[in-house]
């Protein structure tokens, strides 16, 4: 059965890009538009990897990571945060909250696939 990847981003463009790339590589992709929706999805599904943006309304990415790591369904799930080179402190904060890895924006399909394969298998 295809592994499920959860992409959380308030930008539909990014969710589409992630969806197209990963579906093309044989993954199942589910989407959420903010951290709170993300938690709901995480609890409802068995997720192999989460790709989460940091800057989002309602519940931002850092809070999502914190909440996910407190949730029995979230412990041990690889979480990749989408970061930028310029915000090093935010990356450290995400890492401290329990993120597994990161992907610097802008990224391309190859980079996304490489990180997904590395963390979700």
């Amino acid at each position: 059965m295809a592994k499920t990847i959860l992409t959380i981003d308030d930008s539909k463009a990014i969710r589409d890009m992630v969806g197209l790339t990963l579906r093309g590589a044989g993954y199942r992709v589910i989407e959420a538009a903010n951290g709170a929706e993300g938690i709901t999805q995480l609890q409802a599904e068995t997720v192999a990897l989460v790709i989460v943006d940091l800057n989002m309304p309602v519940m931002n990415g850092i809070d999502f990571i914190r909440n996910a790591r407190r949730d029995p369904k979230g412990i041990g799930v690889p979480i990749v945060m989408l970061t930028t080179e310029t915000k090093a402190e935010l990356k450290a904060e995400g890492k401290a909250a329990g993120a597994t890895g990161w992907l610097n924006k802008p990224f391309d399909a190859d980079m996304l696939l490489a990180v997904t394969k590395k963390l979700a298998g």
Partner: protein
Amino acid sequence: MVDLSPAVTAYVQESRDILEGLEEALLDLEKRPDPETVDAVFRSLHTLKGGGAMFGFRLMAGFIHHFEDAFDRVRSGDLAISPKLINVVLKARDQMMAMLDCGGDGPETAALVTSAPLVALLTELDAALDNGVPLTPLVAPTRLWHISFRPAATALQNGMRPDRLIEELVALGQAVVTINAEDVPPLDSFDPSVSYLAWQVALTTAQPRSALEAVFIFADDADLDIHEVEGEASGSPQPDQREDKPTETVAAPPQKHDTAGDSVRVSSAKLDEILDQLGELVIAQARLRQISNSIDEPALEGLVEEVERLVTGLRDATLSVRMLPIEMVFGKFRRVVRDLSAELGKEIELETQGGDTEIDKNVLDRLSEPLVHMIRNSIDHGIELPQERSASGKPAKGRLRLSARQEAGEILISIEDDGKGLDAEAIRKKAVDRGLISTEDEISTAELHKLIFAPGFSTAATVSSVSGRGVGMDAVLTTVSALRGSVDVKSYPGQGTRVTLRLPLTLAIIDGLLVRVGAASYVIPLASVEECVEFDSIEHGRESGRTMLQIREHLVPFIDLIDAFDDLPGHEQRRRVVIVKAEGVRVGLVVDDILGQNQTVIKSLGPYHGGLEGFAGATILGNGSVALIADVGLLARRAWAAQEHLRNAA
């Protein structure tokens, strides 16, 4: 909106450095292809591209992508390095420089990217890719690595799969994996979500360190050590020996660190400011010394000496910060020589010598252009075509030698070719045509040679695109003179030409000898002073008409500075002569008195006084008065010219 401009500035600066390095690497590659240089070229292109996408140079990144791709293929061994490929990447590198100058995506860059030369470059690249015959595969040697890895305790909770990382690592080569389970607690206190294990891997692989590190990219909170075990490249992995070798591994990396990591990039404006302040400090210290001398207080005297010592130390340290090895400009010339000789169908071997000679940054910056002019001239006019050379019994390959060395307070840079030499007759004819000399003038060959530095002089029969526009050599002389230096040319028909530039070590502060002539004080740069002797006014008085001094076994011409500087003669019976050496000749400068040594902060003469002959600048003394700095080179030339004149008259 975040202001990215400081990061962009840093990116542009960094990219320029990378492009400089890229040029060097490509030229190295042309001479001797080796996997490490290929790797370096690829990395440079990769870094440029990656940064370009981040910092608003997307168009440039797109352009670079093609070349990065090509080198990726070279790296993996399925494309050969051909002169064609090097050529096209070198040209592309120049275009990347131009794109950086455009300052990011915009109409200017867009125009450049779609311009005909760039499109042609990409076509040329395609051609180079097709014609590349796979060369002997660039196989990197295999090396033995020891990796020890202990994930953070929270790794499992945070979604990390250490076992997978180890699998990834093992896939890079041949590996022996040891798991250390010492820290696993008894079952009753065991928490399955905590990571207790540590791994040790002995890996034999041809992959570079970066590939190993990439495996652990997200494990930045882990305890990770990757080190190479030297001298065991082909031996079988021995994981247990890890503990025996830590000293070697600790000792190896810092050497690299010293050259790259421990330096700081400082803008030269800041350095100039420090130097200005230092100049003021030196003047203030001279005033302090003056006051202390007049008060005669031993306690103050001691302190003044201490301050003097400190200021001198600070001066030397500051000046040394501004010193750069001349290699930095020599490096650029490799490209000039390569491109020009290819264009003109000449074969030329460039030799450099003394690249580690250090020179003040300001001097270095302004020197680069004149040197390029001279090199162009040597290649264009000096060195003959291969068949011409063979016909006259010379090796077909011409030789161009750039050398630099320090001599007393001067830097000597010479450009020497083994070409046909200067054509004295052609120069004479041209000079007459240009009205620089008249047909009757009797001019020595050496003087004729110097005429090539006269404004508007060019002997090339046709104006080529390379040089021969006649603006070159006089511009060289202008720049060098502005730097208080001089130019000398020696040429032998059929054997070659050597142009030597003499430049002061620094432009800002020098050690000077303070002398009195008439009522005024003057400074003679100490670096050119050889000795001071008594001057016997009776024997050498103005009336006697003698112009030479006997200094031990040598005759040295002398100039009375009272005459040279148009001052009124004093009544000293015991005057002195300062023997200086400048431009390779010795000359005596007769002064009224020697006042002592002095740290001289050089202030340039303003536009009103810039035309004054015989002075290289001015300085402010401790008592607040101004002293002019003698232009020793000019005085020496004058003394010898007068001597020649006398001899000819006699």
